[in-house]
Structure formats: C-alpha cells, structure tokens
C-alpha cells in the first residue's frame, strides 16, 4: 500500500492518492468505503458492481466477524483469501472489526481479554489472537487493529481503560500480524480530548501504515466532534492515511474532511436504501432550486426522496435527471415505487446502486474543492443550502 498527500486546503483538509496492490488504478482521497455483508454489497449483485464509477467504488469495507456465521478461517484460507472468495480481484478490501449495522461494539461486556460485539451469532468476545487468525485467513489489503470502542457517556475511568486496552491490543495484533496487508493502528479516546491525544501519541509511535479512528458516531454531539477529531489528527503523522468509522451523513463527512480524514466507512447508504430513500441533493455545490420553490415541494427535503410516497406512482422520470447510474439510466420512480409496494428486493438493489453512485459523486466534489484550495467555501455553501431548503419548506408548511 502506498499513500501520498497531493493537496491541502484551509489547513487540515487534504486530498491524496492511495495505491493498493489489487486495485488497477490509484484511488483518490477523501474517499468512501462501501459497506458489505460478508464481503459483498448488501444488495448490489457483484456483476452490477462494475456499473459504479471506477476506481472510486473499488474500496470495500469488510467485517471479519461476519464470517463467524458459517465460514471457518481454514476454509477461507483454502479458497485463497477474501479476494478469491468474493471474486473481487481488482478491489481494495479493508477489514475492520466494527460494522455499524451488524457488529456493534458492546463496551459493557468487553473486558481485559477481548472486545465484545453484538453480532448475528449473538454476543461474542473477540480476543486479539482470534481476530488475527481471521485477518490472516482473509488477507485484506489493509486492516484495523482490535479496539475497545466506548460511547461518549462512559466514565472517565472506563474511557481511560479503553485507551490502555486498545494500545495493548494493537501491539498484540501487530506482533501476531500477517506479513502482507497494511496495518492501521486503532485510535480511540471517547469524548475526552486528553485521552484522544494520549491514544494518538501512542499509536503514532508504532510502526503502522495508517490509522483507524474509532469511537465516533457513538453518542458524541456534532458540536464537540471537531475538537476531538483535531486532537487526533494534529498528532498523527501527515503522510499516513486516516480511516474513520461512524461518520456517515454528508455534514459529518465534511467535518471529517475538515479535520484531515482521508477515508470514510459509512452506513448512510445502507440506511437510506432500507428506508426506500434516494439521494437527490445537487452535486454542484449550490442549490439552484432555491428559486424554483413550488407548492408541491412542501414537506420535501431536497436532499433525498422517499420512493414509497404515492406521489411517485405515475412518475416516469428517473430518480435524478442528470444521473448516469444504472438505475437512473434504466428505470423510473414509478417502477421503483411499485417494487417497494410489492416487496421486491430489486427495489433495494436499484436504490443502493443509485445512492452509492450519488454519494461517490459527493466525494468527488469534495476532492475537487480541496484540490482547488476552496474546501471551506464549498463546505459553507453546502451546509447553507441544506439549511435554506429546510427553512423554506418549514416557512411554507
């Protein structure tokens, strides 16, 4: 794995390039990792994956704990590891223990021996040696060390313990680690600036290829987050990539970019898709629709539409007019509305394709803004236009 920062904007925000052995082209950052279930997208069929923008869509997040349900490390090794098992030879696979959908850290059950997760197999205690056995058999391009993630409301004592454990487990994981695959040291520290700094300092001393920043999206407020993020990124070496878990919404991604995060592991698309939503917010930064407000837009949130709404029953237009994704090129809102009504899985597949395509487009606009040195301006405009949509809709409700 190779990573290099290519451009800066407004201090901490950066644009970079990530080279992974299996990916045919280098991946520009800030970038999004796509969520998977046992290595494949939740809904998108593997032969439809190539319809997504390339190489942006080639980074997948994989949770090793998913495979505890029916696939032994021995079998995975005999198939030749993840890339072979999934038939995704030109994709970059990042193994991370926490998956915000299925494998949620359960801090009360975590103890000095291992991290506890709520999984589809029940509550499991994962020790570093077990975790590393999984990682070795999977052979991902990069992997995060095992962490003790705690929510924002735990006691100071518990938070401090989580940092101590995470650092200790990181050393154990590195010692047990496979020869291939880039190690990302885990940084935790909850809502305490001092603990975040302490953890970052410890991790920065280790010989790792990048950093996985955990413990976010577990109860901290949007307002306290920037300071916590900066406490970490100010200490971490600039030249190594930073991957974060738990920042999903566009506003949260922008917070992360502003603090110097390069890779985002987000379940936003998954939740949108399950809810029957399609992303529609404009990707050119400024909301041109502000002046086109119509009566029919009352209650509409210009960032996304809910395809279950009866207003789409006869709507023969694509989800987003200018979108070049497979769904928008082939199908209409009316058809997706129908599929949702009759409970056909094709609805979720089409929505996941569109939402992924759209969100990857959002990341592209972020990268362009950073490279042009205009990130803060881009961020301000984006946030303002979303606030304006909601206030206009509210005023006319």
């Amino acid at each position, binding site marked *: 794995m190779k990573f290099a920062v290519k451009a800066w904007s407004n201090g901490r925000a950066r644009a970079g390039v990530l080279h992974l052995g299996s990916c045919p082209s280098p991946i520009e950052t800030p970038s999004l990792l796509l969520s998977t279930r*046992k290595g494949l997208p939740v*809904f998108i069929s*593997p032969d439809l994956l190539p319809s997504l923008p390339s190489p942006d869509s080639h980074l997948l997040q994989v949770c090793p704990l998913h495979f505890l*349900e029916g696939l*032994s490390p021995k079998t995975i090794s005999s198939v030749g590891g993840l890339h072979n098992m999934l038939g995704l030879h030109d994709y970059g696979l990042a193994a991370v223990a926490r998956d915000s959908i299925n494998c949620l850290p359960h801090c009360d059950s975590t103890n000095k021996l291992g991290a506890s997760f709520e999984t589809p197999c029940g509550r499991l205690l994962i020790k570093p040696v077990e975790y590393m056995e999984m990682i070795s058999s999977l052979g991902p391009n990069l992997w995060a060390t095992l962490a003790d993630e705690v929510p924002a409301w735990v006691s100071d004592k518990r938070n401090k313990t989580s940092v101590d454990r995470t650092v200790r487990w990181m050393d154990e994981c590195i010692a047990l680690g496979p020869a291939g695959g880039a190690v990302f040291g885990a940084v935790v520290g909850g809502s305490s600036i001092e603990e975040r700094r302490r953890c970052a300092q410890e991790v920065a001393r280790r010989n790792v290829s990048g950093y996985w920043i955990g413990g976010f999206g577990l109860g901290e407020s949007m307002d306290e987050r920037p300071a916590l993020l900066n406490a970490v990124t100010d200490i971490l070496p600039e030249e190594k990539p930073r991957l974060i878990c738990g920042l999903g919404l566009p506003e949260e991604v922008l917070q992360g970019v502003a603090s110097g995060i390069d890779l985002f592991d987000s379940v936003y698309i998954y939740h949108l898709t399950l809810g029957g939503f399609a992303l529609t917010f404009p990707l050119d930064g400024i909301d041109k629709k502000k002046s086109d407000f119509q009566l029919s837009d009352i209650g509409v949130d210009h960032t996304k539409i809910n395809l279950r709404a009866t207003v789409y029953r006869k709507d023969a237009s694509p989800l987003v007019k200018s979108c070049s994704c497979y769904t928008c090129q*082939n199908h209409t809102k009316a058809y997706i509305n129908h599929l949702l009504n009759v409970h056909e*899985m*094709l609805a979720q597949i089409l929505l996941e394709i569109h939402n992924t395509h759209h969100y990857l487009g959002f990341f592209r606009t972020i990268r362009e803004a950073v490279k042009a040195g205009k990130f803060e301006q881009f961020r301000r405009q984006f946030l303002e236009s979303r606030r304006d949509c909601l206030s206009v809709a509210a005023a006319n409700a």
Partner: protein
Amino acid sequence: MALRFEILGRFNRARAAQLTLPHFVCQTPLFMPVGTIKGLATSQLEEIGCQIILGNTYHLALRPTSELIDELGGLHKFMNWPRALLTDSGGFQMVSLLHLADITEKGVTFQSPVDGKPMLLTPEESIQIQNRIGADIIMALDDVVRTTITGPRIEEAMYRTLRWIDRCIAAHSRPHEQNLFGIVQGGLDPVLRDICVRGLVDRNLPGYAIGGLAGGESKDSFWRVVAQCTAALPEDKPRYVMGVGYPLDIVVCSALGADMYDCVYPTRTARFGTALVPEGVLKLKHKAMADDTRPIDPTCACMVCKNYSRAYIHCLVTKDAMGSQLLSYHNLYYMMKLSRDLHTSIVEERFPEFVCTFLLKMFPEGNVPEWVCNAMEVAGIDISSCCAPFSSSQDLES
C-alpha cells in the same frame, strides 16, 4: 395473430422452433421465469438468455393496476424489458385461493387480499386487463380445477372454458399486437381433454396451452395428458405446458412435443438454499457445504459458478439476501441453458443423445423413474442405455 412459428428441426414428436413475437424472436423449447425474479435486474436476465418473462395479471391488477401500467405505456416500458412478455389470465389464483373464490358462469369472484373488497374477474375483464398490460402473449380465462378433484365439476369446467374462450376472443381489442392463447382443460379424463382440444382448435388461436396440470396429480397421469394433447394440437402452433417445472419434466414434455414452460420452482427453491445442478439438486444449507470449496456446478459457466464456492454461498444462504440472489441467478441460468440445449440438440439432430446424457447425469445408477421410461417410449426415444436392467430379469436368474 401476431406471431410466427417456424419449426427448424424435429425428432419424432420433439421440435425446435423459432417463435417470432412482436417484441422478440425466441427459440423453443423455452422456459419462462415468473415476475421480477428475486432481485435480478433486466440486464442480468438478458445476459443469461431469458427470452420471455411471465407477468402475473392478478398481482399486477391489484398493484399497480393495469390502468396505471397502460397510462405509462404498457408493461414492457414500465419495467424496461425489451424482450417478450406473457401474462396469465389471473385464473390460476382461483385454484390457489379457492376458499375465497366463487365461480359462476359470469366469472370468478375473489375477495381482494388488499382491502377485502369483492373482485369479479370475468373473461372480458381479464382480457381487458391484459390488453392494458400489453404482453406479447395473453392467456384466456379458463375454469381451472385441480386434477386431484374428480366428478362432474371437471366436465363443467371444461365446457365453461370453451364458452369463455369465445367471450375472451370477442373482448380482445388488440389481436394484431397480442396473441391470445387458449388453455386446454379436462382434468385427467382423455375424453374431456379431447373435446376441449377440438373446441379450441376450431377457434383457430395463435397458440395453445395445456392447463390444469402441475397441481398434485401423479407423474404417470401428468405425462399421459401432455402426450395426448400434444398429439392432438396443431403442429404449426406453439404449445405451452403451464406450471412446468422441474428440469426432468421439461425434458420429457419437450420429447413429447411441447414448446413453452413456466414455473416458480427455480427461484422459489433458490430462496430455500437449493441449487439446480445436472445431478439434480444441491442443498447449500447442508452442513457439508461449509467446507466445500468447489463451485456449485463445475460445468456451469454462470458468474456464480465462475466466482463463488459452495462454502461461501453456504454462509450466505437463508441469512443474507445476497444468497437468494446468487442462487436465483444460477438456477435461472441453468434453466436458460437447458432451454438452449434442448433447442440446439434437436436442430443439430442429436436430441436422443442429449436426453440420454441428461438422464445418465441425473440417475447415475440407472434408476430412471418408470413414468419417464414410459413417456420416452411414446416419444420414440431409446433410453435403454440409461436404465438399469429391470428387477424382474434378476428374479429370473436367481
């Protein structure tokens, strides 16, 4: 008439043909998958070679309604499917929901499962709905009875089917764009079946279906009805055996001279973790699959078999939607390949060899079921190389 049916090859009763429909030129024998198939997109269906898809009129009439489909330009446009479509009459639900249905000369009354309101499906209404949906082939509303029922009801249903076909023909407003197929009923009674065939043939329809089967009758009864009907139906028009089915059944019916099939079996069985393979079925849920690193079918060229091991599919199956998706894809690919193989083997004059290879794979110990042997005899196909010696001859020796 809005179709052309050209026979390209034969072996005794079996035929391979080209069926030209308004939206697509098809090769028969062919299998038609049903509906939006457990998550497969239209481009994937095209890729695996799907030629016609069956749309269920009953469900479409409830949601999103045939009027809406019509308003949006027909079902082809609504789902963006460039190839052929077939809609059934809505009548099969009569059999499946019989405890809710009341059948009279007028039509069939259902209770709508959506809002409990009474729904009356007349032959006229069924055809009008199908005219609005716009499929290449539409089915007449027939009075279909389970083959496990005996008595005067079967005769009543057969005659009513003939009276209803005239009402369907009269109501059909798009005969130059949509082909109305009649459905032969009559239960397991050869006399009734014969009357029905002759009655339908008199109406000179574009194609004919053999209905009322695939509902619990014995295999022995099943093949005999198919054989009788295919012998009596016109040579130069397509024959569609409704609700069939298992690969073995399709091979037998094709040998007897049928051309088109539909069934939910391939996708339904995928949902339960079962894959179709030349040997029969493979149950991916089975514990033994957890370590099996082979593909589902080493001889299959589909993307599932080219990329995934049984072990991986095992860990997905019944737990993740992707498992059903991948198995549905493989199973439909299998059915499409079976269709292609049937067509090609007949055209290339090696149909008997194909049948023998098929049976040998499925019954490696030679235990081909008796009904298949009997049917193949009538079809004039020598499968003695696939069958183990009869037990009676062993008794003679001892």
